[in-house]
C-alpha cells in the first residue's frame, strides 16, 4: 500500500499522545460527545476512529434527536392483521408475512439535501440507496415509488431542480428494471430551496430467504463486493485530511455521489444468486457513512468482534487516506459475511456477474472492531458504541406561538362560489392547479411495466404488483402526506396522512397491513420544530394503534429549512396492503354504463388547509378535517370486502379537492361520463352543494356498483351502519359530467384543464 505509515494516526500513537488537539467540532461533534468517545476508549480516538464516531453519531445516522420519540413505535404490537412481523424497526427494513410462505419488505427514505445540490444524481442515488436496503433483507426488489415535494411551480428553484430530480428517479429506477408504481408530486412555496426527494422500495422474498445484517461465527470472512471505493461524499471528513494533506488534495474530494444503476442491477442479480446458493451468513448494504457504518453495524449486531484490513479495499482513487476509505459513500457496494468453506462458491457467483469481490476482514472472538491499514492498527473500538449506543437527546419542545393565530384564522370569511357557473369554474381551476393536475409529464418518464407484474399504477390510488405468478398474490402501496394539514396540526396531520394512505390501499382492494414513514422536518434544535415532530410521531402512533397496523420502519430527515424558516412538517406515510389475487384489484375509474355511483361517508364543511382555500384564496388557516380512524377502518373493510365479493367495479378515494375532483378523475380515467345528483347528500349532511363538492372530510370514497350487485352492496353498508348514498350513474353516452340542476362539464373541458399545467411549466 502506498500510504506512508509514518503519517498514520495509529492506536498506539493515539494512546501515547493524549493531548494532541483534534478537530471534533469541525466534524460536528459536541464537546460532551468528544469527551464521551475518550471515555469509551480510555484514550483519545485516532483520526479514523474520530471520523467514524463523528459520522455514526451524526443526526443522519444516529437519530439522536428523534430516538426518544421514535421509541413509541416499538410499543405498537409487532403484528399485522395477518400475523407476526418477521423483522421490524432496527433492521434495514421491516419484513412482514403476506401468507403462502411469502414475505415482503418495504421502506421509505429521504435524499433531500443531495438532490438540491445535484438534482439528477441526488435523486438517482436516493433510489439506489433504498433499493440496497431492501436487497440486504434477502429480498428481490419489485417496485419503487417516489414521493416528491417542490417549491412553487413557477419558482426558478423548482424549474432548476424538478426536471433533474424526475430524470434521476427515472434514470436510475428504469435502468434497474424496477417498475415505478406511484408517488407524489406536490408544490408548495415552503419547499423552495429545500425540495424533498423521498424514495420507497418494496421487495419480496420467501420466508426462508430472510437475511439479517449481523456478523457471527468466529473465523467467518467479511467480503466487500460491488463497485470500487472512490472519494464520493466525504466532503465532511476533509478536515481530518487537512492535517496531513495539502489543501489541493482535499478540495478535490467531491461531496456529490454519482450513481451507476447498471452496476446496481448486476449487484441485485448477483445477490439473489448468492442467496439462492445459500452462501451468505449475514449481509449489509453500504449507504451513508459507507464502510464505517457497515462494519460497525455488522459487528455490533453479531456476537463477537471483527478484524478488517482496510488497505485491501479496492480503490478507484489510489490517493485516498484510510479515514476517507472508511467514510466514502461510493454507491453500489454490499458487504457479506461468508463461511470460509463457501468462499469459493461465493467468488464464482460474483465472477459470473462480473462483480468485484474482496475479502476485507474476518469475524473474531474478541469484543472489538479492529481496523488495520497495512501493519498498523488504526481503529480499535467496541462496535456497539459506534453503531447503536450513540448519544440520545431530549431536545426541548415548545408549541409554536403562531399556531393559535393560524388555527383561529379559519377561513369562514373566504368567498364561496354559489352560481352554477362559479362552481364549474372552481372545479376547472382546481383541476388545473399544480397539486391536482395530471402528473403524467412526470410519471411517463418512469417505466411502470417492467417485470410484467404491475396491476395498478399511476394515476390510480395505489400501486399494485403481483408477487406470486402462480396465485396472483400481491401487494398494494400508497404514500401520502398533506403538509398543509400537518402545518395546522401536526398530530392530526400525521393521522390524516396515515388515513389517506390506508384508504388508498383499501380502495384498490387490498387489506392494509403495515406502515413505513419518512418524517421530513426542519431543525431539531428549534423547539417549535421538535414539538411538531413529537406531535406527528404521537399522531402516527395513536393512529396505527387505532387501525391495528404496525410501523415497520422509516426514516427521519431533519434540517429541511432555508435560513430560519422550516418546511411544513411533512410526515410522509406509506401503507402496504395485501391481496390474494391482484387481478381482482379495483381501478379508480368507471367504464360500464348503468353502474351506480355511491358516495361512502359523510361530508362536513371542512376547508381548513383545503386545496380550495389554497388555490382560490391563497389561504392557509383553521383546523384540518376531523380524523376518525374507526370510520376509516370500517370504510376500508367495506372497500376490501366489496372488491373481494365483486360488488364494485371501480373505487376512488376522496382527498385533496374533495368529491368534485374524485368524480372528475373517475370520469377522465376511461372517458365514460357520469350523471350526478347531490341533493340527498346535501340534505342528509346539512351542507350546500359547494361543500358537498369541495370539502375535504376524511373517511370517504366514491364507488361504482354494478346494478346487479346494488342490493348486496347497500345491505353490506347498512349492516355496518356506514353512511352511503346513491349520487349518480355511469353513462357512456354522456360527454363528461352532468351535475343535475347545476352544471355540465365535457370530457374535453376536464381534460384540457387537467393535462395542460405541467407541460406548460416544464416542457421547454
Amino acid at each position, binding site marked *: 500500500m502506498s500510504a506512508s505509515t509514518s503519517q498514520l494516526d495509529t492506536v498506539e500513537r493515539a494512546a501515547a499522545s493524549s493531548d494532541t488537539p483534534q478537530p471534533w467540532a469541525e466534524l460536528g461533534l459536541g464537546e460532551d460527545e468528544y469527551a464521551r468517545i475518550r471515555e469509551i476508549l480510555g484514550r483519545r480516538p485516532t483520526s479514523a476512529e474520530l471520523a467514524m464516531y463523528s459520522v455514526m453519531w451524526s443526526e443522519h445516522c444516529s437519530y439522536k434527536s428523534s430516538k426518544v420519540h421514535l421509541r413509541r413505535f416499538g410499543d405498537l404490537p409487532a403484528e399485522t392483521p395477518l400475523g407476526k412481523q418477521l423483522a421490524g424497526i432496527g433492521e434495514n427494513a421491516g419484513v412482514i408475512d403476506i401468507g403462502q410462505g411469502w414475505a415482503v419488505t418495504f421502506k421509505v427514505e429521504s435524499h433531500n439535501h443531495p438532490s438540491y445540490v445535484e438534482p439528477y444524481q441526488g435523486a438517482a442515488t436516493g433510489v439506489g440507496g433504498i433499493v440496497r436496503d431492501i436487497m440486504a433483507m434477502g429480498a428481490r426488489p419489485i417496485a419503487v415509488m417516489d414521493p416528491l415535494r417542490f417549491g412553487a411551480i413557477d419558482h426558478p428553484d423548482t424549474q432548476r431542480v424538478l426536471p433533474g430530480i424526475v430524470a434521476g428517479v427515472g434514470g436510475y429506477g428504469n435502468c434497474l428494471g424496477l417498475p415505478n408504481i406511484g408517488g407524489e408530486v406536490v408544490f408548495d412555496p415552503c419547499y423552495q430551496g429545500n425540495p424533498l426527494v423521498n424514495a420507497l422500495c418494496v421487495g419480496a422474498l420467501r420466508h426462508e430467504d430472510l437475511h439479517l445484517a449481523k456478523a457471527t461465527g468466529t473465523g467467518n470472512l467479511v467480503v466487500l463486493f460491488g463497485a470500487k471505493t472512490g472519494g464520493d461524499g466525504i466532503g465532511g471528513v476533509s478536515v481530518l485530511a487537512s492535517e496531513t494533506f495539502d489543501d489541493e488534495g482535499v478540495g478535490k474530494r467531491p461531496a456529490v455521489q454519482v450513481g451507476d444503476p447498471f452496476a446496481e442491477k448486476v449487484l441485485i442479480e448477483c445477490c439473489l444468486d448468492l442467496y439462492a446458493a445459500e452462501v451468505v451468513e449475514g449481509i449489509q448494504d453500504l449507504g451513508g457513512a459507507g464502510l464505517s457504518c457497515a462494519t460497525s453495524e455488522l459487528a455490533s449486531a453479531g456476537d463477537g468482534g471483527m478484524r478488517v484490513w482496510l488497505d485491501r479495499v479496492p480503490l478507484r482513487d489510489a490517493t485516498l487516506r484510510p479515514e476517507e476509505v472508511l467514510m466514502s459513500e461510493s454507491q453500489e457496494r454490499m458487504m457479506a459475511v461468508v463461511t470460509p468453506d463457501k468462499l469459493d462458491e461465493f467468488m464464482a457467483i460474483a465472477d*459470473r456477474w462480473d462483480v468485484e469481490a474482496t475479502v476485507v476482514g474476518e469475524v473474531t472472538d474478541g469484543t472489538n472492531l479492529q481496523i488495520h491499514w497495512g501493519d498498523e492498527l488504526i481503529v480499535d473500538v467496541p462496535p456497539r458504541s459506534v453503531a447503536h449506543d450513540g448519544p440520545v437527546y431530549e431536545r426541548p419542545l415548545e408549541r409554536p406561538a403562531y399556531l393559535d393565530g393560524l388555527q383561529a384564522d379559519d377561513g369562514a370569511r373566504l368567498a364561496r362560489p354559489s352560481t352554477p357557473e362559479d362552481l364549474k369554474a372552481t372545479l376547472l381551476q382546481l383541476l388545473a392547479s399544480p397539486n391536482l393536475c395530471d402528473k403524467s409529464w412526470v410519471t411517463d418518464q418512469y417505466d411502470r411495466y*417492467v*417485470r*410484467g407484474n404491475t396491476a395498478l399504477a399511476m394515476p390510480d390510488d395505489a400501486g399494485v404488483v403481483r408477487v406470486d405468478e402462480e396465485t396472483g398474490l400481491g401487494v398494494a402501496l400508497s404514500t401520502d402526506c398533506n403538509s398543509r394539514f400537518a402545518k395546522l396540526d401536526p398530530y392530526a396531520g400525521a393521522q390524516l396522512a396515515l388515513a389517506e394512505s390506508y384508504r388508498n390501499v383499501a380502495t384498490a382492494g387490498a387489506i392494509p397491513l403495515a406502515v413505513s414513514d419518512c418524517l421530513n422536518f426542519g431543525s431539531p434544535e428549534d423547539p417549535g420544530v421538535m414539538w411538531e415532530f413529537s406531535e406527528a410521531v404521537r399522531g402516527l402512533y395513536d393512529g396505527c394503534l387505532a387501525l391495528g397496523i404496525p410501523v415497520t420502519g422509516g426514516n427521519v430527515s431533519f434540517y429541511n429549512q432555508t435560513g430560519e424558516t422550516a418546511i411544513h412538517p411533512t410526515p410522509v406515510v406509506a401503507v402496504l396492503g395485501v391481496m390474494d389475487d391482484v387481478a381482482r384489484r379495483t381501478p379508480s375509474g368507471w367504464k360500464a354504463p348503468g353502474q351506480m355511483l355511491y358516495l361512502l361517508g359523510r361530508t362536513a364543511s371542512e376547508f381548513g388547509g383545503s386545496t380550495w382555500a389554497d388555490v382560490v384564496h391563497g389561504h392557509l388557516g383553521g383546523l384540518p378535517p376531523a380524523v376518525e380512524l374507526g370510520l376509516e377502518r370500517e370504510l376500508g373493510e367495506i372497500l376490501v370486502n366489496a372488491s373481494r365479493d365483486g360488488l364494485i367495479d371501480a373505487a376512488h378515494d376522496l382527498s385533496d379537492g374533495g368529491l368534485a375532483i374524485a368524480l372528475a378523475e373517475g370520469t377522465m380515467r376511461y372517458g365514460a361520463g357520469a350523471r350526478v345528483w347531490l341533493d340527498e347528500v346535501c340534505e342528509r349532511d346539512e351542507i350546500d352543494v359547494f361543500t358537498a363538492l369541495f370539502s375535504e372530510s376524511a373517511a370517504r370514497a366514491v364507488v361504482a356498483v354494478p346494478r346487479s350487485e346494488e342490493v348486496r352492496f347497500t345491505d353490506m353498508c347498512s349492516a355496518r351502519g356506514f353512511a352511503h348514498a346513491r349520487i349518480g350513474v355511469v353513462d357512456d353516452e354522456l360527454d363528461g359530467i352532468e351535475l343535475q340542476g347545476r352544471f355540465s362539464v365535457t370530457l374535453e373541458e376536464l381534460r384540457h384543464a387537467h393535462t395542460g399545467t405541467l407541460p406548460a411549466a416544464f416542457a421547454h
Partner: protein
Amino acid sequence: MRIGVVTFPGSLDDQDALRAVRLVGAEAVPLWHGDEDLRGVDAVILPGGFSYGDYLRCGAIARFAPVMGALVPAAQGGLPVLGICNGFQVLCESHLLPGALIRNDHRKFVCRDQVLRVENAATAWTSDYEQGQEITVVLKNGEGSYVADERTLDALEAEGRVAFRYVGQNPNGSYRDIAGITNERGNVVGLMPHPEHAVEEGYGPSVDGLGFFTSVLAQVVRA
C-alpha cells in the same frame, strides 16, 4: 418448439419475454450473453433493458457479446430473431437491421400505451396479424427515435420492410413514424415497443402482443 431469450448484463425484460413464450405454449429457453451457444433453439428474442448500462450507445457493447457470435450467422441463415427495444438496438448495431436508434426528440424517457399499425403481416413474427391491423402495446424507452438515411428509408418503404408504424402522435421523432422494421427475408424483426408487456389480462394495456409469439410458433411448426 424452443424459443430462446438472451440475458445480457443489464437486460430487464428477459423474464417478461420468457413468460410470453410460455404463455403461448412454447418452451422458454434462457440464453446467456457469455455463451457462444444458442442451445438448439428454434427462434431467439433479444429482450429490452439497458445492456451494459447502455452507456456508450444503446446496444453497442452487447453487439460484441459471445452469444452474438453465434446469433448473427444463424439470423443470416434464416433463424427467426425478434429484437424488442434494447434488442432492436442490438440488431441495428450488429447491422442485422439497417439504421439506428437515437435519443428521443423530446430528450426524455417515455413510458406509455402506444397504438401501432402492423404494416407487414408476412414476417416470422407478425403472420398472425392482419395487414394494417392496429394494436396497443407498451412503449418505454429513452433512445427510441429510428433514423436512417433517405436512401435506406426509401428502400425500406419500397420493399415493405417497415413492419410497424406509430399511430397518432409520433412519440419520439422516429423518421417516417417507424416503430419497427424487418430484414429482406422477414425472419429478423426489430421494434421499439414491447409486445411482451401486452400478453396477460390485467397486467398491461391489452393482450395484443400475443400475436408475435403465436406467429413465430406457427412459422416454426410450418418450417
